[in-house]
């Protein structure tokens, strides 16, 4: 017979939470394409609980005590990495930070060998950022540790999308039919892809806005393999009636590779400004995954203005990642 005490629940505050076992199905967090809406909702609610911990004077609980966690980053990162580092430490995990630039990767060690080494060291959770799409899938197939994708190539950045969803949820009453406009370099954006999955699964309506050279192929038709989304190259029309505007970072080398005639024209046509935001709903909120190129993809005044939740996103990042680590490790404390 099952008792409440034996059930795994999100109940850090001692109150009765939602049961994890019946909802949470993930050994790894690779992308949101295989998340159910109930799982996403569980992440949101667990994040609420983590926020409570973060508001305490001593922000530390023993949930991951005795677990070792490695952040394995093949690309530079400030916020994602430090956010995971903090999240893991708040849950009392032992954290090793590995950067490709200071590890055997520089000596030519291949990904699988590095992963095997981490496994031999008894690592429980590997948080991985990699410039090539799909690399965390190689890891998940190859080692026993839990893998969390902290960004792979153009493919996915599920923890970023979850923190974006959480930030939206703090300000909007429901996801259903929420109008979200994503503006910028969609083609090369893992943030956009994961947000498209997460938002559409929760019932939001996603519109993409960018020059067609920065749009990935195949979105014009309905497919079983990808959510149906709308594309609108004109930013004023794309923002019309929007509840959420999300600007993406423009990698400056996109202009050099010929995808844009000039940064000047891009800025003129696609920069998220107060003026363009006027087409959106009055209570529109503005998100950006960072790091921001101020006055390129988004104007300084919007970044620092009242609608911007950019710092809020960073803050939520820690709580969301605590929630994910907690759920992955079984939520037993």
């Amino acid at each position: 017979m099952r008792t409440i005490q034996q059930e795994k629940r999100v109940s850090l505050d001692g109150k009765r939470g939602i049961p994890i076992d019946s909802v949470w199905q993930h050994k790894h967090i690779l992308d949101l394409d295989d998340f159910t809406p109930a799982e996403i909702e569980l992440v949101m609610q667990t994040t609420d609980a983590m926020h409570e911990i973060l508001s305490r004077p001593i922000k530390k609980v023993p949930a991951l005590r005795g677990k070792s966690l490695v952040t394995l980053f093949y690309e530079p990162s400030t916020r994602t990495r430090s956010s995971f580092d903090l999240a893991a430490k708040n849950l009392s995990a032992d954290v090793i930070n590995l950067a490709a630039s200071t590890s055997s990767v520089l000596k030519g060690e291949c990904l699988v060998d590095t992963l095997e080494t981490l496994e031999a060291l008894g690592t429980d959770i590997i948080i991985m950022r990699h410039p090539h799409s799909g690399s965390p899938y190689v890891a998940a197939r190859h080692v026993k540790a839990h893998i969390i994708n902290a960004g792979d190539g153009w493919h996915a950045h599920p923890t970023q999308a979850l923190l974006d969803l959480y930030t939206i949820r703090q300000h909007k009453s429901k996801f259903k039919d929420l109008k979200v406009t994503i503006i910028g370099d969609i083609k090369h954006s893992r943030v956009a892809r994961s947000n498209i999955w997460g938002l559409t699964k929760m019932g939001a309506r996603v519109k993409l806005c960018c020059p067609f050279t920065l749009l990935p192929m195949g979105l014009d038709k309905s497919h079983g393999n990808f959510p149906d989304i709308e594309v609108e190259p004109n930013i004023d029309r794309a923002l019309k009636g929007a509840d959420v505007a999300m600007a993406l970072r423009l990698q400056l080398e996109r202009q050099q590779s010929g995808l844009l005639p000039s940064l000047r024209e891009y800025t003129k046509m696609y920069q998220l400004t107060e003026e363009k935001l006027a087409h959106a709903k009055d209570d529109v909120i503005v998100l950006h995954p960072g790091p921001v190129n101020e006055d390129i993809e988004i104007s300084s005044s919007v970044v620092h203005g009242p609608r911007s939740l950019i710092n809020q996103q960073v803050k939520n990042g820690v709580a969301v990642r605590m929630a994910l680590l907690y759920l992955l490790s079984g939520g037993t404390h």
Partner: protein
Amino acid sequence: MTNSILINNGRIIDPSQKMDSIGSLLIVNGRIAWVGDNNDKLPASDYGILDAKGLIICPGFIDMHCHLRQPGFEEKETISSGSRAAAKGGFTTICCMPNTNPPLDSQGMIDYIKVTATNEGATRVLPIGCISRARAGKELVEMGELAEAGVIGFSDDGEPVKSSRLMRQAMEYSLAFGLPIIEHCEDTLLSENGQMNEGIIATKLGLCGIPNAAEENIVSRDIALAELTGARLHVAHVSTRGSVELLRRAKEKDLNITAEVTPHHLTLTEDRVINYDTNAKVNPPLRTEKDVETLIAALKEGVIDIIVTDHAPHTDNDKLCEFALAPFGMSVFETAISSLLKLVHQKQIDIKLLISKLTAEPAKIIGNNFGKLGTLTVGETADITILNPDIEWVVDVNRFVSKGKNNPLNGEKFKGKVMATIHNGKFTYRDDSIKPRAKV
């Protein structure tokens, strides 16, 4: 037992003679001595017997496009391992691409392949020479000398000839030898960084796509150059419906153009790449259902002349990595015929057509410089493949003879496989169930 063997009572299909009947075939001293349906008329009395009831007897398969990796990449494959894998797949003649290290761009290298194949090969191995020296796309190889050394054509396969001018020169110069220019059609500016077919799956996976236009651009250019020069052009591994359309129009003009398609482009689609299966990474990439349908139709229509394997073995380590870092290619000698027989079982193509595309048709392109290939004509070399079209089996790459285990069909169930392969009258492959017996 003597040097004679009777393959008894099978379904003999030989498209070169428009033959499809139940009968028997006698091999004496490495040659086909007799074919008929009445064993009373046998011209010999002392022979072993291989019972072929329920089996198909056809000319040994010819593969005009494979990679044997020797010299230079012997960890992936050798002439010995590759030709034995080919024999297991029913092939008796294979043509190896010159992208070895060093590449096959000189008479000495062609001789090396021929000598090694004679000593160690389980099939006839016919080399293809480079178009450009060191495959660098700058200057032509000494085509005359290579032709004399015994190449069946010229190709920089793996890469296209990027310079249109060099391609024109290659076509003009090759005319004197009557050998085809075999082109890997890829506009490398359009396919740059490409990992798989461009489309929604690439979008979902965040992988850089290779558009159909990358192939079609060069197919189109080469057709124009073939028309300009009158040269023989053979288009390698056609993968898009647009290429089929271009080829159809070129053939209507009676240009000297032939084309090939691989079993994987006839049977698999880009969906195989989901989950980042590096074994499904191949160039040209697996395309869409629509392309596959068009390729099958083109095969039937004759717009595509032959089927080739493009067998491209790699080591496990080569493929056990990030998708973008994995090399292109599949090791398919040992699954090619079975995946093609699936099309026969699905009634998409006829078995006679299939066999013709693996025997009589490639023989026409190669010509008679190396004997009469792809036929069961009495008096010719006994190169024979024996198939069981109905036997069920499951692919296990660990049982491959090829060193390359990189095949996305691992674990898949198939109906139909090669039971025995005979080259020059000798078994080069024999399934455990096939045991010739002495005549009683």
